[in-house]
């Protein structure tokens, strides 16, 4: 994905309005991963692609991915490659790679280095460390009751519910889950592995609590916790529960 600069028309000399607006946008970009720098082969294959769907490919912006070459290409090689790409009908607008030589190429070819992207088919590793929320970003707030069958997920932050969580409902957060009401459904904190996350509620009637993947189902509620304000946290591999009021 690339960011794009938008420009407005140049202002009148008399008016002091700015000549441009800078905004961040997102576009999808085709990535052309080079396996060789043979210009003839590149021209043939790309021409074939463009011919197969001319409306889609003709004069479309592409970024050149050099990571599969296994070596740093020379500047002259790249000039020839780019010429072939243009003759096939595509327009290179960026380079993708991770080597130090890329910066020099980028400067010489006058193309930006774009961050590599993951195509849809690549699987995401199962366990990911939780992203640290930026300081100052508040928790996800849920003021309406969470009804049976509903699910609320707070990504990369805490979840605060100022009403009840019904039986059969799920409240999930990468951070902590705070429920200023009864918890009758499921609460999942530290959903992406943050082991210090906690669950807090004002009336403990829960079906299931999970913190960083360690969960406990409550077939019966322990009498010292049932209906009371309770917090749950992870101590090593064990879930611990305690009444909140002292």
């Amino acid at each position: 994905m690339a960011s794009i600069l938008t420009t407005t028309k140049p202002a009148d000399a008399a008016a002091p309005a700015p000549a441009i607006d800078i905004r961040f946008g997102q576009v999808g970009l085709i990535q052309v991963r080079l396996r060789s720098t043979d210009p003839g082969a590149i021209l043939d294959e790309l021409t074939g692609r463009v011919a197969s769907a001319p409306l889609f490919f003709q004069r479309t912006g592409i970024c050149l991915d050099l990571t599969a070459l296994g070596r740093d290409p020379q500047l002259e090689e790249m000039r020839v490659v780019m010429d072939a790409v243009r003759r096939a009908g595509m327009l290179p607008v960026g380079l993708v790679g991770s080597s130090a030589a890329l910066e020099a190429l980028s400067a010489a070819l006058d193309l930006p280095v774009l961050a590599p992207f993951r195509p849809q088919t690549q699987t995401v590793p199962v366990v990911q460390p939780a992203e640290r929320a930026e300081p100052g970003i508040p928790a996800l707030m849920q003021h309406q009751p969470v009804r049976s069958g509903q699910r609320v997920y707070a990504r990369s932050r805490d979840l605060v519910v100022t009403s009840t969580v019904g039986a059969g409902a799920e409240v999930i957060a990468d951070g902590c889950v705070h429920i200023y009401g009864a918890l009758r459904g499921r609460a999942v904190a530290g959903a992406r592995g943050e082991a210090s996350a906690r669950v807090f509620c004002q009336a403990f009637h829960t079906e299931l609590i999970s913190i960083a993947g360690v969960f406990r189902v409550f077939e019966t509620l322990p009498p010292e916790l049932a209906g009371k304000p309770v917090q749950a946290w992870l101590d090593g591999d064990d879930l611990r529960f305690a009444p909140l009021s002292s």
Partner: protein
Amino acid sequence: MTEIIVVTSGKGGVGKTTTSASVACGLARRGKRVVVIDFDIGLRNLDLIMGCERRVVYDFVNVIQGDCTLKQALIRDKRLETLHVLAASQTRDKEALTAEGVRRVLDELIAEGFDYILCDSPAGIEKGAHLAMYYADRAVVVVNPEVSSVRDSDRILGLLASKTQRAEKGNGGVKEHLLLTRYNPRRVASGEMMSVDDVKEILGLDVIGVVPESPDVLAASNSGVPVILNDESDVSLAYDDAVARLLGETLPLRFLEEPKRGFFSRMFGG
């Protein structure tokens, strides 16, 4: 300003159709122009409860599909002249309903000048139930004081707050009311049934009425006379109170206690 009220529950058999019929009559008795529509395509019973099952010529699906005009399908109640019934089809199923078709019929009813359009929802959360609630301004959620009914009503409340036109457009949301039916004070006292407070705590809503369990309801269905028209029944009084509260009156809840038996009836086992 026409108001569209859906009578729904999630759970089956809790008293939606009984409630739709009685609330419709209660509103009509107070002079309002009311139409009650059966959305349970294929399993219709509103016409039975209203006592007009032998007068159904055209139904809701016929109107949607343009086989007849709306006027031809509306059945005027013989007891209350401002009350009309739009029956469901018995031969089709819910696939015959479409959102645009329902919208057209509702618009036509609004143009006819009805004060209230009551939508009697089928049980469940599928297409019939979804379309019955989709265009509603208000909802009466019928609940029995027992766990599975309460759980299903919670689900329905979630759907009312998210999958209705008012929720999607953000213009106020559907106004939700809870109606507790089949309430048995003796079983509540013994702990077998949930109390009004239990239900209010779990669902987070006040009740618009408590209707006691009574054999009068079955007698009413059998005779095709909505139970609210039976002046001697506690159920009738409870429904009338609920209608009054729907119209904005504040009334204390009745029928929460077991009726006290007098000395003589206890002596003589009456």
